[in-house]
């Protein structure tokens, strides 16, 4: 179904000498031609940066933590920090992937410009890295790979290969704009895991079987060359955040709940998957809440629905998540999960727009969730100052929080005050 079309001779010297073409139709790839694409640079100072800095005073973080503006990044969505930490790739729900560069490691971005401007991206929401430095970008209906992206992002025509060709991730009729923001991760098994939100509030019954086969309303996995695709996770509504527990390889993911059932149900979900093929209940259930449309629809035979590990506040929109693998945060955070709540869109009283922390116990189960950072929602007016979408970690263990409303990446670091003399 899919084929990899990596450039021949991905030898560093070759590529450095002759930047490869990376056009959208990909047909000139093997010709090693340049394009005339040019970068779009985002100003990191001036009015926009000043306005964002003005938001900082509203953000609450636990004692000892400090929040700062890391970068001005329009429409910032899911993030992937490159292995060396020089650049963080940031997806959008528009047509850009941003390279957020910090060469001097002062933990403030030096430059932000678009990655691979020669490529016509289509909702490139989800970047992720393999440990050996291949960048994957999951778009609305295509998956690309960029070998050694951390070294080639400086040019407009980086080397590129196709993992899933355009139109082969989902049938074109199942594309939408809202529930088509993909995220990806390379798992401990070396496979590429990609979420496929289903493009309805609740999918119609006549699509159940097709969706189940394709993995829409689930998470699929495949080899990094696109072969061996299979549905790994079933029974999800629209997940836009997943990560593997480094301690035991479990896959954890967030899920967004059904709209239109009221302000306080169903809850948002944080789920733990321990084996391939597990079913998390949707569209029959959303956590323990039954979905009315499916009350009389027969459930899949012999399948036990897995309940969420954490029921989050309804409609807070739990999106990106990451396990904390750094060492600079206090011990209570190590090995736990940070997750971003984007904030509600039609709840009577808005909720969310914050970063949550979930601790795990020795068995690898959730052992309590708390608010880690908030203040992006102005509770007096119900208006958003910002909307956290994803969390990622720099090599120094500090946290990046992407915000597609403010157009920023925030940084939260642990800076214990020096002991007083």
């Amino acid at each position: 179904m899919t084929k990899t079309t990596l450039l021949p001779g991905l030898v560093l010297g070759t590529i450095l000498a002759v930047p490869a073409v990376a056009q959208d139709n990909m047909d000139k790839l093997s010709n090693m031609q340049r394009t005339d694409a040019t970068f779009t640079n985002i100003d990191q100072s001036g009015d926009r940066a000043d306005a964002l800095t003005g938001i900082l005073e509203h953000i609450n973080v636990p004692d000892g933590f400090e929040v700062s503006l890391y970068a001005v990044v329009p429409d910032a969505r899911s993030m992937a920090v490159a292995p060396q930490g020089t650049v963080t790739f940031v997806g959008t729900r528009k047509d850009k992937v941003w390279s957020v560069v910090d060469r001097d490691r002062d933990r403030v971005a030096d430059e932000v410009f678009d990655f691979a401007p020669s490529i016509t991206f289509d909702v490139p929401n989800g970047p992720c890295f393999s440990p050996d430095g291949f960048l994957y970008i999951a778009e609305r209906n295509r998956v690309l790979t960029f070998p050694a992206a951390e070294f080639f992002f400086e040019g407009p025509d980086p080397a590129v290969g196709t993992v899933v060709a355009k139109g082969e991730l989902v049938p074109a009729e199942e594309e939408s704009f809202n529930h088509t923001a993909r995220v990806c991760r390379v798992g401990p098994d070396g496979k590429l895991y990609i979420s496929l939100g289903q493009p309805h509030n609740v999918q119609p019954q006549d699509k159940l079987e097709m969706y189940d086969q394709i993995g829409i309303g689930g998470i699929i996995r495949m080899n990094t060359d696109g072969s061996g695709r299979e549905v790994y996770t079933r029974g999800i509504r629209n997940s836009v955040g997943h990560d593997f527990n480094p301690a035991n390889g479990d896959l954890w993911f967030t899920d967004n709940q059904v709209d239109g059932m009221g302000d306080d149900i169903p809850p948002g979900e944080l789920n733990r998957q321990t084996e391939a093929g597990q079913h998390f209940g949707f569209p029959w259930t959303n956590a323990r809440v039954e979905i009315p449309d499916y009350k009389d629809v027969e459930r899949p035979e012999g399948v036990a629905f897995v309940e969420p590990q954490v029921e989050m506040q309804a409609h807070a929109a739990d999106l990106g998540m990451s396990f904390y693998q750094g060492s600079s945060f206090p011990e209570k955070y190590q090995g736990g999960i940070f997750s971003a709540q984007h904030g509600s869109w039609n709840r009577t009283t808005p909720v969310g727009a914050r970063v949550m922390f979930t601790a795990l116990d020795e068995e690898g189960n959730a052992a309590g969730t708390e608010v880690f950072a908030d203040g992006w929602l102005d509770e007096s007016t119900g208006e958003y100052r910002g909307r956290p979408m994803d969390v990622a970690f720099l090599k120094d263990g500090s946290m990046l929080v992407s915000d597609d409303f403010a157009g920023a990446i925030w940084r939260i670091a642990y800076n214990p005050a020096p002991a007083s003399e």
Partner: protein
Amino acid sequence: MKLAAVLLGGLMLAGAGPAVADDPAAGRKVANMCRTCHGLDGLAQIPIAPHIGGEPEEYLEAQLMAFKTGAREHEMMSVVAAGLSAQQISDVAAWYASHESRATLPEGVSVEDAPAACVSCHGATGISELLDAPNLAGEVNIYIDTQLKAFRTGRRTHEIMSDIAADMTDEEIRAVADWYGAVQLEIEMSE
């Protein structure tokens, strides 16, 4: 005005009944349900939502009714519209239509290069020329791209747009979307 007649016919069939008197001030209150995504003035706050400030009232009302009846489907709008009465739909359409939208082409771009198949209804700068056509000025290119593809696959239908989109390639769709997406839109909110 053949289009308007078609539109009204559609509304009748959809069960909206005779047109009700609209009240933009009441619509402003309804718009509290819309503002997180579309803004109170109709300038969208998130990429997936279109700008609706200064849009033809008839278009807005027809789309909300289409979401309500299921003729058009969207994971969020179907939920919102299901909970709105015909009166609320008229009011909120009147509220968003009451604003003034202004479109400016990017520097160095000529109206003569506007997509020929679109301009007679949507204008060269994406300000609608008819009651049944939306403004396209300054929409996120992916929004326009998504709608054209929906017309092409039949997920969304319209007497004219379904035919136009049917023969467009992905590249042609994106080029049109990029044209209107690059237009600068300003919306001045009415008082």
